[in-house]
Each structure stands twice: as C-alpha cells, then as structure tokens.
C-alpha cells in the first residue's frame, strides 16, 4: 500500500497511458469501454488521495526516476494542481457511463475502440500537464492531449468535424509552439526547466535581460491563451465543440480548456509573478480587457446561433472570460472567483453538453428550430439542462452565483464599480440566449423531429442528472469548491512579489 501511496503522482499519468495502450489493443468497443471506465473510476481515488495529502501536509514532490530536481523531472503537487487533477478525474469518472450509448450511436463500430484509446491518451495528457513541475514536460503532455483531442474531434458525426479538427490542429500547434518558444527563452535565461527553479533564478536574471523575459512571458501567455480559448484566440473552439462527438465535447469543454487555464495561472502566479513584479507590466489589464470582451462579444454571438451545441460553445468562450477576469484581478476574492468558476463552469458545461448529446441520441438533431417542445418529450433531460442553464445565468442557489459573487467582490476590492455592473450585466445576455432555448424547448408545441423522442436510458441520464444536481449542491455547500479555491488563491497570492 505504501509503495503505491508514494508513487501516486506518476501513477495518475501511467494508469491512463497504459489504459490507452490496452484499449488500442482491445479491438472491440465493449472491452475498450470497460478499460476506459475502470481507468476513469480509479483515477479520482489517486487524485483524491493526493488532494487529501496536500491539504493535510503541504505540497508533494516526486522525483521521476529518483533524479533530484532541478536536473531530473519533478512532479510537484500543491493545492492548485491537486484541485485541477480532482476536477479532471471526477469529470471523466462521472461522464464516462454516458459514453457507451452515445459513442455507440454516433461512431462507427470499427472506430469505437480508438475513440476510447484517444480519450485515455487525452486524459493522460491533461493529468500530466496538471501534475508535472517541469515546463518542457508540460509541453509534451500538452501535445499528447492536443493530438488525441484532434482525433476525438475528427471522429465526429459529419465531415465538418474533419475540417474543425484540422483547423484546431493548426491553431493548437501554433499555440503549443508559442509556449515552447517561451519556455526556450526562459531556459536561455535561467538554464533550468523546473518550474520552481525557474522562478528562483528568474529574479536575478531580470536586471540584465528584462526584454527577453518579457518576450518569454508574452510567448507563454499567448500560447496558453490559444489553448484555453481566451478571446480573440477562441476561433477554433466553436467548430470543434459543435462537430465533435457529443460525449467528447462534454468531456473536453469541462477539462481541456480548464487545464490550460491552470497552466496560465501556474506561469503567471508561480513562475513570473514570484520572480518579477507583474503589476509593473500591463498583463492584468490586457487579460481583464480581453475577458470583458469575451463575456460580451461571445455571449452576443451565442444569442444568434441556430444550433444548440454551437450556442453553448460560444457560451463557453464567454464563461472562460469570467475565469480569466478573476485571474486578472490579482486579489483574493477575484482569484477565488476565477478558480471556483473553473469547477462550477466545468460541471455546468459538462451537464449541458451531455444533455445536448442525449437530445441528439433521441432526436438526431441539435438545430434549435427542430427542438420545439423537446422539454415535454424528454422532461428529465431538459430539466437537468434547465438547472444547468440557471447556473450559467448565475441565479442564486446555483454554483454560478457563487462564482459571480466572488468576482464582483474582487472587482469592488479593486474599486472598479463599473466592472461590477459589467459582470452582472453579462449574465443578462446569458439570460437571453438561455431563455430563447428554454422557451423553444418547453413552451412550443412538439415538432415532428422530436415526436418520437423520450428520455435516454439510465446510463446516460444518471451522469447528466448528477452533474445538474452538483450545480445546485455547490450553490449551497462550497467547502470543496470555494473553500479550496480560496486556500489556493491565498497561497498563490502569498508567493507573489
């Protein structure tokens, strides 16, 4: 037992990696699904154990192959990554049962085992980014997750998925390459790739080489922002999310962008922020400006979408704006709000996209015009969808409200009353695009397209209902969301220069 305990940081990467290998060899859909399910259900225990360990006794440092850092690769888990690992693994575990029917419906038989293989690779990459303490290692995991994501998207139900995957491949590779350029510049300045070590060496290097370091900061920020779809680097996202297989969209929307946000926070708060005074640079101002633009422009675009999944994709861009806004505030309430919204948005969006998957499973369409009266045909699905929508608007009693509350407090702490109104104002636009769907779904007479629809089987319904219930639950009990987010934020801000 002890042997396992000590190696948790690497196991959380190895288990899905070997799972992917097995799933690839499985050749048939059901065994591959079984492997994916087992892996998805084991990982949360690893993440949970690490989270518990971190909260009880501080950061874990794991030396890969026993090579001491900074020469060897270090896996370093503190409250921030343990939090992200927990989120990613839980989303995987909760949504996985949904995949069997949905994937069986949308993907050709021969490709199904590869779908699970790619999912497990993607999971490997995402968990790897979160667990590693080595900047270049993070790049490798970033590419593992990205390449498998391109394949997941390309497996989508019509040919536009191929185009979406290709476009994402181009954009994603540019983003990852920008990141690696930034890391290269940092390596030139510090001679190290270990994140903690870079942070320690960057300060002394600042005096002579501030221009190179600013360039590194710019490259890393832009590169990671492409992956996290910060406005206006989001153009890959709407196509990718609308044409990918439904389950893949739900999983990716809840995890992939969130892990990229983690990487941004890590670089800004644990590396650059520790070494140099970021407040002297306009980083925060740029992030806040772009976040506000995302909240408004992307929400407005969402209002005019005719496809449900596309509307939710643009809503994701807007919601990511909330998260980066909180990061840009650089104060306790704001950062707490940003971090807590990572979790809250992941849960809501996973629920919403799963509902879209369930609707497609029964009605074979996600065009809003065809979905009139779907609420009466699929009441449980659409009730869960509605609850998650309330979370998106941020009505009190949902987790979305908690995020908004912290963000607003963060803005007030900065003395920006106008931003407070901008935050609450953007939820009005969410009210419009969400209200439009709910009106069609509940109040219109059922259309011919949905005449035969009914609620999906339990394996699909349970994850959906669970996630929707979480939206309500975390609106009241915030110990595991805002509680940990606030501890984490305090730690990150305490390290700032």
């Amino acid at each position, binding site marked *: 037992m002890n042997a396992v305990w000590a190696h948790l940081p690497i196991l959380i990467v190895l288990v899905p990696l070997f799972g992917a290998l097995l799933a690839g060899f499985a050749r048939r859909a059901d065994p591959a699904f079984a492997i994916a399910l087992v892996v998805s259900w084991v990982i949360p225990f690893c993440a949970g154990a690490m989270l518990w360990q971190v909260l009880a006794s501080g950061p874990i440092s794991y030396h890969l192959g026993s090579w001491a850092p900074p020469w060897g690769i270090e896996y370093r888990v503190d409250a921030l990554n343990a939090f992200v690992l927990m989120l990613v693994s839980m989303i995987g575990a909760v949504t996985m049962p949904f995949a069997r029917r949905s994937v069986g419906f949308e993907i050709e038989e021969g490709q199904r085992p590869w779908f699970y293989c790619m999912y497990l690779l993607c999971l490997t990459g995402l968990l790897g980014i979160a667990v590693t303490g080595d900047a270049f290692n993070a790049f490798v995991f970033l590419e593992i997750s990205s390449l498998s994501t391109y394949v997941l998207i390309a497996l989508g139900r019509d040919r536009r998925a191929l185009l979406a995957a290709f476009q994402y491949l181009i954009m994603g590779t540019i983003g990852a390459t920008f990141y690696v350029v930034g890391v290269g510049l940092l390596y030139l300045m510090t001679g190290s790739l270990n994140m903690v070590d870079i942070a320690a060496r960057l300060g002394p290097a600042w005096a002579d080489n501030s221009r190179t370091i600013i360039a590194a900061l710019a490259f890393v920020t832009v590169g990671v922002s492409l992956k996290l779809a910060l406005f206006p680097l989001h153009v890959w996202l709407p196509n990718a999310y609308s044409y990918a297989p439904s389950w893949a969209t739900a999983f990716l929307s809840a995890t992939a962008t969130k892990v990229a946000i983690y990487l941004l926070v890590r670089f800004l708060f644990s590396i650059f922020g520790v070494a140099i005074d970021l407040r002297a640079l306009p980083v925060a101002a740029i992030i806040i400006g772009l976040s506000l633009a995302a909240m408004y422009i992307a929400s407005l675009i969402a209002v005019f979408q005719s496809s449900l999944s596309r509307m939710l994709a643009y809503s994701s861009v807007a919601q990511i704006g909330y998260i980066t806004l909180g990061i840009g505030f650089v104060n306790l309430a704001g950062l707490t709000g940003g971090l807590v919204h990572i979790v809250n948005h992941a849960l809501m969006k996973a629920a919403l996209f799963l509902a879209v998957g369930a609707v497609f499973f029964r009605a074979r369409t996600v065009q809003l015009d065809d979905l009139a009266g779907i609420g009466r045909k699929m009441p449980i699905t659409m009730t869960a969808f509605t609850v998650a929508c*309330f979370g998106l*608007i*941020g*009505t*009190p*009693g949902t987790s979305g409200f*908690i995020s*908004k*509350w*912290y963000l*607003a*407090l963060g803005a*007030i702490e900065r003395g920006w*009353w106008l931003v*407070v*109104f901008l935050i*609450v*104002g953007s*939820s*009005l636009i969410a*009210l*419009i695009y969400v*209200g439009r769907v709910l*009106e069609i779904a*509940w*109040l*219109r*007479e059922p259309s011919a397209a949905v005449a035969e629809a009914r609620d999906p089987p339990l394996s699909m319904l349970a994850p959906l209902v669970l996630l929707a219930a979480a939206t309500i639950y975390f*609106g*009241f*009990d*915030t110990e595991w969301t*805002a509680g940990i987010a606030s501890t984490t934020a305090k730690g990150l801000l305490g390290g700032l220069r």
Partner: protein
Amino acid sequence: MTAVLSPESALALALLTPFVGASVLPLFHDRPNLREAVTLVTAASLCFIVLQLLGPLQHGARPEIDIIEIVPGLAVAFKVEPLGMLFGLVASSLWFVNSIYSIGYMRGNDEPRQTTFYVCFAVAIGSAIGIAFAKNLFTLFLFYEALTLSTYPLVTHKRNEEAIRAGRTYLIFLLGTSLLLLLPAIIATWVFAGTLDFKPGGILPASLGAATIAALLALYVFGIGKAAVMPLHFWLPAAMVAPTPVSALLHAVAVVKAGVFSILKVAVLVFGIDTLSSTGQATWLTVVAGVTIILASVIALRQDNLKRRLAYSTISQLSYIVLGVAVLAPISVTGAAMHIAAHAFSKITLFFAAGSIYTAAHLTQVSQLDGIGRRMPWTMGAFTIGALGMIGVPPTAGFLGKWFILGGAMQTANWLAVAVIFVSTLLNAGYFLPIVYRAFFCDSVDDGHDKHSGEAPWPIVVALTVTAAGTVLMFFLPDVPFSLAKLISGR
C-alpha cells in the same frame, strides 16, 4: 390561541409546507379531485401554521432558523419579524381562498395543464413565504428569484404567441432588474456594512455620505422590479395574459407585494428610517412614487380591458406603499404596511370578479359590462366593495392605509405627497366608479353575447364573497394588521 407548535418548528413547517405540497401534487396527476384536495389541505395547513406564529410574535418572540452559511456573508437563514409576519399572513390566508377560486376557474374554463398550474402555484407561494421570513438580504434575494422563475410557467400558461411574448417581458424585467441592479446593491451593502442581516435601525453606516446612500437606494428601488415602480412596470400588464387566479393572487398579492415588502424592509431594516431622513435622500423617491401613482392611474383610465385596468391600478397602488416609505414618518410606514394587507384583499376581490365575469359571460372589456350587475349581483357587489377599497372610502380597509400615509405626509409637511394622494383618489374614483355604474345602471346592449348567463360556479362566488367581506372586516377589526404594522416602525 394555544400554541400547538413551538415557534421555531412552526417557522420551519411554514417554509416546508408549500414545497411538500408541490412535490406531492404530481402524484395525483390523473385524479383531479384528490389533487385539488391536496392543494386545499396544503393551503389550509400553511395558513394554520403561519397563524401559530402570530401569538408568540405579539409577545415579543422572534423565532429564527439558520440553515447554512454558504460563503462568508451568504447565509440562508430565516427570522420572523412583524412585517414579514403581516406579508406571510396575507399571502397564506389568501392562498386558501384563492385555491377555492382556482378550482372553480380552472374547471369552469377547462384549462389545460392544471397539475403544472397547481405545482407552480405552490412553489410560488413557498417562495413568497421564504421572502416574508428571510433573515437577511441573500435569503430574500434567493426566494425573490425563485418566485420569478416559478411564476414564469404560470404567466406563459396559455402557451400561445401572446403568452410567450409576455413571458419574455416578464423574465427580462424581473430577472433583469434583479440581476443588474439588486445584486450589485446587495454586494455593495455587504462591502459597506459587513453584514446582510436585517436589523431594526438599519445596518448601513450613516457615514457613507448622501450620494452613496442615494445611489444605493436607487439601486434597491429600481432593482426590486416586482414593486413595479415606473418605468419598470411593463411586466405587470404583460403578466395579465395568465389565468385570472394567477393575476389575482400572484400579480395583485404575492409577487407585487413581495416587491414592495422588500423595499419596505430594505428601507427600514437596511438603511434605517433615521439614516434616510438625516441624509434627506428620499425626496426623489417621493417624486418617483408620486409620478407612478398619477401616471398609472391616468393610463388605467384609458384601458378598456378590465384586467389591464386592474393591473395599472395595482401599479399605482403599489407606489402608495413606496410613497409611505418615502415620506419617512413612522406613522406613514405603519400606513404603508397596513396598505399591503388592505390592497391585497381589495385587489384580489376585483380580480376574482374579473375572472368570474370571464368564466360566466366570457367578457373581458369594460365596455361590454353594461347591465352585468343585474345578472351577477354577488360578483358585482364584491367588485363594488373592492373598488371602494381602492378609492379608500370607509368602511373599507383601503381607507386605513391611505389615512396613515396621509397623516405621515401632513406630519412631515410633505405637501407633494399630500397632493398626490388627493389627486390619485379622484382618479381612482374616475376609473372604478364608471364600471360599477355601467354594471348596475346601464341596460345591456344586444351585441350577440350570451345574455342569459347567471353567476359563475359556486367556488368562485364563495371566494370573492369571502375576500370582499375581509375588506370590510379589516376596517372594523384592524387589530392584527395594525398591531403588526405598529411593531414595524417601532412606535
């Protein structure tokens, strides 16, 4: 009255009962009689439970329950205080009467989706009770939004194009104002005061400065869109597409009263009357309320649709309560609280009558009502009493509220408020008395409508008779509302 329940458990039960009823109702989807019985039993028990709280309250008890503190500052907690008690009492007792009426109306008009109707209704009442007994601003806000969302399916009940459009207006105005203005106001209150708990005398420090107080007050008054202060009143006439029982209880009592109740509560228990008067920032509120009263009355004069005329009358009457706050005299606050109860009974009677006419004779326009009083004497008799209550003629309860508000206005030499009350009383008479005149003294014109219809189904007649009687009774026996109202202003 001997207390069967401890005050705390009565409070908990009062909060739970409507929701329990709402969750039981769908089980009887296919058995209407049983379903309606559940509604009536729930409403009766709620009324009984709320009454249990009255005695202890008058003896100084202030039962409270803390449920959970979500994050620092955001706690779900309940506490009974006199104003909430008054609102809770009005809402729960009228729910019972309204349920009897609903049965007659929904069956009489053969409405679809009745189970959804009763479920949403119960949830809406539960939310109103939650608002009434909220201990802090967050809890109030939570149930305020729940009330909006639970009444939305009722407004869009007909599901035709008009209802859907009205639903849109309803949501955008109510959710919109609350998210855009009320929420920042609450956040600001938390930042300035460090607490969101209601407290006699207010929680906001007077040191904030007049400008901040004024801005905050504006956010609250306009953020609480349910109070229908102009120019945020458009949702109320739009909501009239709902079935009449909804207009009667929700859009004349529960929802709109939740609005003015919240304003009253915020003014007295968040700002504090003294803070408001010492910073002298309520003048503009007098003007806004006055303009709303007069303008809404003028618009009401020109409405031919009976329910719309009543809706504009509601807008105008709600601002009496806001005016009572704006006058800032303790006696006018008492009057405002009295008016919550008085207007509730009178206005629900008027809506009941409107629904009764629609059910029995399928008439909706004022111009069609010639001679209707002779065929529907009970309905139009109750209507007349309700109308007198609106105008404020004794012996109806409406007189009391107006009298105290007027007294307060005189006391503080607020001549603008005095003038508004006089003018609006004339206007009230101007748009209600012609209806009464037409109904009783004009001969019906033969325009193809069924002229042989008699009274509406008996549950409707019973309900409107009870509320009309209540309007008069409250004039002679104002003890309960008056004692509660006096406790609010602390004098």
